[in-house]
């Protein structure tokens, strides 16, 4: 009886404090992936995500206070107003001042919360031009690149619109009937690494336009604070500026069928020179007929097409995967 509220309360308080601290803890530089027993956000690598982390930290503080504000009186009640300590219950069922206060004060708190909340929302929705972003976030933005991401079942296809480069990016390490890399080597990030990652230059505005072929997917990179639904028939747009060189991962964030877990997103943020070198190499290697949209998932996943096998090892069990 004594332990109930106290136990849960103390645990909550403790964890809330750790979570708050965890959000501020520094991480390996340039790392855009989750780590074990993580309790907070991944280290922000874009200006918008930095704002998200800041706003969330204040929200976390607020909700911790509110929770304690409920837990505290309940604990007090257990000790002060149990039948032994207080054999005669009061008949008090009204207190207008109290009722006014606990209506008006929450309203004030919510309005106070709504102001930075709307600021954050509208800031993230800035019309993406390099100049506007640089101005709003007071950072240096070197240029603009438009990246189109198309969600397929179950991989991402990217188009660098300015260059005409197409990339087909799929999961590298995972179940061997779906991902290409086989047994994951030591330290490999299973279900996060891709065979053809997106490469972008640092400190550049990346305009991401997403759509999908058949079903809804979502393109997300937590370290950049980017998540947007990929809806067939729509071209949705979002943006980010990566401020640190490194490798950043995300996962498809809308249930899209059975291999929803196996279509990660990998973004390698490199220097401008490295990006230019990479782009030149990619364009040179790209087959001309790759510009035509592939008709089946198997045709896209060249290795499978060559071997003529279905995602499950035994061809006899091949499922009819719908054409995209």
């Amino acid at each position, binding site marked *: 009886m004594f332990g109930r509220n106290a136990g849960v309360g103390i645990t909550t308080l403790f964890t809330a404090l750790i979570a708050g601290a965890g959000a501020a803890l520094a991480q390996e530089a340039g790392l855009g992936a989750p780590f*074990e027993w993580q309790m907070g956000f991944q280290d922000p690598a874009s200006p918008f995500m930095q704002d998200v982390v800041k706003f969330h930290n204040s929200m976390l503080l607020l909700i911790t206070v509110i929770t304690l504000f*409920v837990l505290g009186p309940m604990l007090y009640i257990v000790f002060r107003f149990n039948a032994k300590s207080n054999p005669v219950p009061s*008949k008090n069922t009204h207190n207008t001042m109290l009722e006014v206060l606990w209506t008006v004060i929450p309203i004030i708190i919510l309005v106070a*919360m709504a102001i930075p909340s709307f600021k954050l929302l509208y800031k993230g929705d800035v019309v993406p031009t390099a100049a506007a972003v640089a101005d709003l976030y007071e950072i240096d933005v070197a240029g603009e690149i438009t990246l189109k991401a198309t969600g397929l079942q179950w991989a991402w296809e990217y188009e660098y619109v300015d260059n005409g480069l197409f990339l087909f990016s799929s999961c590298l390490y995972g179940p061997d009937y779906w991902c290409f890399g086989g047994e994951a080597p030591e330290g490999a990030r299973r279900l996060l690494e891709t065979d053809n990652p997106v490469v972008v230059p640092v400190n550049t505005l990346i305009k991401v336009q997403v759509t999908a072929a058949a079903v809804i997917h*979502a393109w997300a990179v937590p370290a950049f604070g980017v998540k*947007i639904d990929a809806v067939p028939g729509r071209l949705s747009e979002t943006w980010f500026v990566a401020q640190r060189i490194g490798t950043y991962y995300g996962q498809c*964030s809308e249930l899209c069928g*059975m291999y*929803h877990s196996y279509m990660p997103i990998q973004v390698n943020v490199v220097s401008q020179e490295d990006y230019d070198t990479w782009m030149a190499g990619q364009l040179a290697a790209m087959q001309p007929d790759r510009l035509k949209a592939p008709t089946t998932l198997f045709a896209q996943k060249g290795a499978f097409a060559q071997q003529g096998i279905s995602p499950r090892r035994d061809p006899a069990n091949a499922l009819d995967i719908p054409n995209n």
Partner: protein
Amino acid sequence: MTETTAGAHEAHGAPTGWRRWLYSTNHKDIGSMYLIFAVVFGIVAGLMSVIMRMELQTPGVDIMWGDTPEHTFNVLVTGHGLIMVFFMVMPAFIGGFGNWMVPLMIGAPDMAFPRLNNFSFWILIPSALLLVGSTVIGDGAGTGWTVYAPLSTIGHSGPSVDMAILALHLAGASSIMASINFITTIFNMRAPGMTLHKMPLFVWSQLVTVFLLLLSLPVLAGAITMLLTDRNFGTAFFDAAQGGDPVLYQHLFWFFGHPEVYVLVLPSFGIISQVVATFSRKPIFGYLGMAYAMVAIGAVGFIVWAHHMYTAGMGVDTEAYFVAATLVIAVPTGIKIFSWIATMWGGSLTFETPMLWAMGMIFLFTLGGVTGVVLANSGLTTAFHDTYYVVGHFHYVMSMGAMFGIFAGFYYWVGKMTGRQYPEKLGKIHFWLTMVGVNLAFFPMHFSGLAGMPRRIADYPDAYAGWNLVSSLGAYISFSAALFFLYVVYVTFKSGEKVEASYWGEGATTLEWSVPSPAPHHTHEAPPTVR
């Protein structure tokens, strides 16, 4: 008039055998059937979640079976959600406790439409058969309980999704008819002297709940019918290639879906009010505020649906509106939490099992509510949408907010319904076991979500393994607690102490405590006068 009614019944006597149940027009018997139905399907859906948590306990796909184990996982996710919502929480709260206690509490002899009541219950059987059948006929529906198009249209061939849709049609019809029944009963059959402002808060909660159902379920019916026609009859409501829009489905679904989540929790609020007042030996603090807070939550709940769609691309001004409207709901909800605390303040509290569940509910629902306030902010949506943070949030308000209310109601009213009381020590064990289990299961999900773990994935990057292991352990403890509950029920029925009409003392002031325990087959045959 009442004399004639009583006499007419004695003339043919109460039905016996299977007819008593299949043909029942008795609110108590129908309520009991709903409760048994809810327990059965709660175990089924709970088992599904245990199997899912066994899979998620460690990285890799090791437990899931079949040619496409990941699809099996998605089918379990879908089944778990649909069964918990439509075949556990709603039957328990509305069909079960609602049917049992609303007529008793307002002094009515039964519901307004007893035969409609019967139909509402029995239609759930084919509904459940269709849903369970959808998992074994065809490949199963791996769409999530939200059944988004185009995954549910283009993305699923075969009969499974069609069967799931038809199951929802029947369950929806069952609830719409029940809503008509409850509204008519509550508006027209209160005993003389029981004005709306004298009704117990549990009855208020039922009234608001069924209004929400009446107005939102037809929209669900429309949305899933459009899925059905897109799938089978060549329409293109949600097919972009033919001019349709997948996001239209999301608007239609969530226009139902958001009021639905208030349907799932409002009756819990009602039960908690009854329990807290009884065990504090004080009337509820601020009765009118409590009643109209529920009305406000219900009303505003209709205009916030698109906070489930912040990443769909609706436009920033639309998102801003939904942020504001969603934040508004925090105000009446806060009023309720504070009023419960103010009720206990100055009271003379004892902590029998129903009160433990109620106090647990108040604190844990607050935890779930505050993460809901965080989620309301569209600026944070890119961080939280479709992550385990959301899963943690809604399990706090559901597995704790709603489910703790169900158990509070059971322990509070089982003596009234059966004439036998539960063993207090066993009840407390059930409570504490559940308390540990659900918090272990769902609190770490907030961490996983902050770290970026998406929802509805059968396998995850290795870094998420730690908290997933803890979650799974919590799930096993919770399910053990549920099995222990079955044992508590068994002991109660077999050898529970017999109780009198009002066995909770002077704090229990509503009309159900004025009739014997167990409540006789017919009660309030002459309406009581309420002062």
